[in-house]
């Protein structure tokens, strides 16, 4: 008798109820198995799956007066429910950190560009995080592969500290004054807003759900970011939130020094299927609808409104960018881009999100696998950017007003 018929005959002997009972037992067994062998996974919610809530590398405050036996990931490492623990206030407890602070934090939420609650831990000097944090290097380092000394920031505070002489930083006071508590519009014109008094870092990160995202090994399903317009959800962790889902023509730039491996994972994946759709993230603020008046001291011409831009195919306000979805065809392309091709770039292909140690306008220290130098607005700087990274000079005459004379976000020449 064939085996399938034998099974069929056997199965007919069992009643429906006995089959259901068996199914239930199997399901219960499965749940029990998971509970026994993967207790954390079975019980974990968004916080416990976050970087801060992790029991191995999550928050763990090391400070005078703070009890050493609060387990890693515990709320108390950031929040003091009564502005103290056990009748006294652990360090930091002087100056602005003395006494109760908003959101029950152990220090003031936000004071200035370089004095911010998050920097109490995300710094390489005097971090309250037990053991410090050594992974928060620049995007160009972690996801671009440029490990050259001086080309990257080694911690978050450092990345936000380029406000005086060299480099550039995303300006937190402007996020406070221009975005938080305001009615903003995403690139589709949908209104959103964030509370006025939250930490400006929270505009892009939700500390209770943000995950550790590093390159050893790279895991595209883990995301540290949340769209400003969707604070309570991670962005980029789902397949539908990747670059390739929005832009079929995305081409990842080369990993630093390579012509075979690509960002952000140093592997052969180049279609953006492993990259969050950073365009959607950034254009919640930086689009053709929101007016952002910047006071960033490292912004050329500051204070002024940041140029509006459109990464779409058309805009009623500005000229849509050629580096965006507008299909103008690439000129003078360097590999992996090809002449005449249609490519939509990710914002982070060229820009650092937090700060750039050497370049203005948050321009990365390396783009498309090569180092660039854009310390100022001179044409030499722009040529280093444009002609080193993605375009060959070829026959294009750049001597008229310089690259930036014609090519800029929202500019009359299609941006580019």
């Amino acid at each position, binding site marked *: 008798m064939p085996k399938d018929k034998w099974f069929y005959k056997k199965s007919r002997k069992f009643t429906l109820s006995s089959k259901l009972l068996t199914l239930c037992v199997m399901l219960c067994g499965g749940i029990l198995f998971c509970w026994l062998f993967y207790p954390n996974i079975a019980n974990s919610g968004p916080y416990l799956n976050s970087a801060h809530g992790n029991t191995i590398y999550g928050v763990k405050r090391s400070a005078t007066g703070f009890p050493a036996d609060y387990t890693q990931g515990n709320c108390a490492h950031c929040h003091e429910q009564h502005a103290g623990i056990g*009748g006294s206030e652990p360090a930091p407890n002087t100056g602005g950190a003395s006494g109760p602070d908003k959101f029950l934090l152990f220090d003031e939420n936000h004071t200035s560009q370089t004095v911010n609650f998050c920097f109490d831990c995300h710094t390489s000097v005097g971090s309250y995080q037990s053991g410090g944090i050594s992974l928060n290097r620049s995007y160009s380092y972690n996801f671009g592969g440029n490990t050259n000394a001086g080309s990257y920031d080694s911690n978050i505070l450092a990345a936000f500290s380029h406000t005086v002489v060299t480099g550039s930083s995303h300006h937190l006071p402007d996020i406070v004054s221009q975005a938080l508590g305001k009615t903003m519009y995403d690139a589709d014109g949908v209104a959103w807003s964030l509370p006025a008094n939250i930490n400006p870092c929270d505009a892009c990160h939700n500390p209770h759900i943000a995950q550790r995202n590093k390159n050893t090994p790279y895991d595209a399903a883990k995301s540290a970011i949340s769209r400003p317009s969707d604070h309570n959800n991670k962005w980029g962790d789902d397949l539908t939130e990747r670059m390739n889902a929005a832009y079929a023509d995305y081409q990842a730039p080369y990993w630093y020094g390579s012509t075979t491996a690509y960002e952000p994972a140093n592997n052969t994946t180049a279609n953006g299927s492993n990259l969050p759709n950073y365009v959607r993230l950034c254009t919640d603020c930086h689009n053709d609808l929101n007016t952002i008046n910047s006071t960033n001291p490292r912004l050329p011409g500051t204070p002024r409104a940041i140029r509006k831009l459109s990464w779409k195919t058309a805009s009623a306000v500005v000229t849509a960018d050629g580096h965006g979805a507008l299909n103008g065809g690439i000129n003078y392309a360097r590999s992996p881009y090809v002449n005449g091709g249609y490519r939509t770039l990710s914002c982070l292909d060229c820009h650092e999100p937090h700060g750039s140690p050497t370049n203005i306008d948050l321009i990365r220290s390396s783009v498309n696998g090569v180092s660039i130098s854009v310390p100022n607005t001179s044409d030499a700087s722009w040529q280093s950017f444009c002609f080193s990274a993605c375009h060959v000079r070829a026959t294009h005459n750049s001597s008229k007003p310089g690259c930036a004379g014609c090519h800029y976000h929202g500019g009359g020449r299609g941006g580019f």
Partner: protein
Amino acid sequence: MKNKKFIKFIEFIGFIVLKNSTNSKNIINSINALCFLLSALCSLLFALPSEAKVTGVCSNCHTMHNSQGGQAMATYGADGQPWRGTGNPISFLLRGTCLGCHGMGTANKIVALEGNNIPQVYHTDPSGDLAAGNFAYIIGTKGNGASDRKGHNVIDLGNLDDFLTIPPGQYHDHGIRNTNLTCAGTRGCHGTRNSSSTKYNSLRGAHHGNVEGRLDNPTENYNSYRFLRNVKGLENPGVAKWQNNAPDSHNEYFGATTPLTSACGTCHISEWVPPGVSVMVAKPASGTMSNFCGTCHGNFYTLEGIGNDVSSPFVRHPTDVFLKGTKEYAGYVYYSVIAPVARTTVPAAASDIVQPGTDVIMCLSCHGAHATNFEHLMRWDYKGWPENGQTNGCNVCHTSKN
């Protein structure tokens, strides 16, 4: 108007009972109607405060001469503990101190004594504790080890707090120290708290006039929630008396939607005491449990203490503010005895329903009153989470932070 409706309702039930009882085929309808009527009456009775005055023979609690058959009678209390009566007479002819009667150290959280059920605040009952907790956790005779951080170290325990010398968060110095904190009176929680009240006279008449159940009009100690002067609440009258036993069987706590300010009248109210003396008494003006806690831990309670506002961002965890009805808080809809909420109206019966946007956060949402098995009188192992893999009570309200 309401009375007329009620009479008509009784008439209607009576009509159904009589009509159906004459017909043997419909007798079951008659029984059903009768049962319904009885149930309705019972519900009505339970909704009213019930008198629970001390009953039984006087000698359960008192001894006239501290002598019976040549033996001392004032000997109540747990074996081997300093509060066990040594035979010396006690005020008011009592047979035990506060802990002597309420801390017998047996394996029962409620001790039955010839007609009286005495709630125990020091015991080793493995089935659980009464709602306010168990001082045994401080001593270490129950739980996972002794710790002064687990409760209010009343001096009666004979074990002074080694960590705290004053109440954390006190708004001003009210003289309470780890060397004088006690159960009742000037430096206690229960009974009348004025400058001259002692432990025993502060509770004069409370036990003999005790009212239980729904206590929403406290005027004296006897009709205040657990003899906490002026505190409102519902003392669980069910099978699990005095216990927070299950989502539908627990005490109900009274709360407000705005904490009071740090004005004097928040905690100090003048009372006339016979024969006509005005005495300033420490008691919560709002009648809420959190206001009561705030009489000692003022900065943790007052409006100024939480940031001058009842909306986020707070600078201390708020109490006497309602649980938001939006975002993650909207997920707390089924009452949890791990992190209970207070009600803005003292209900007639315990409910297992939580209404975000209406119900209130209170001190007892996170803390026990006497002592718990966890540091800082927490209701759960806060500091051990998340490594302990146990429930974090924070997540009961902060449902997305799990």
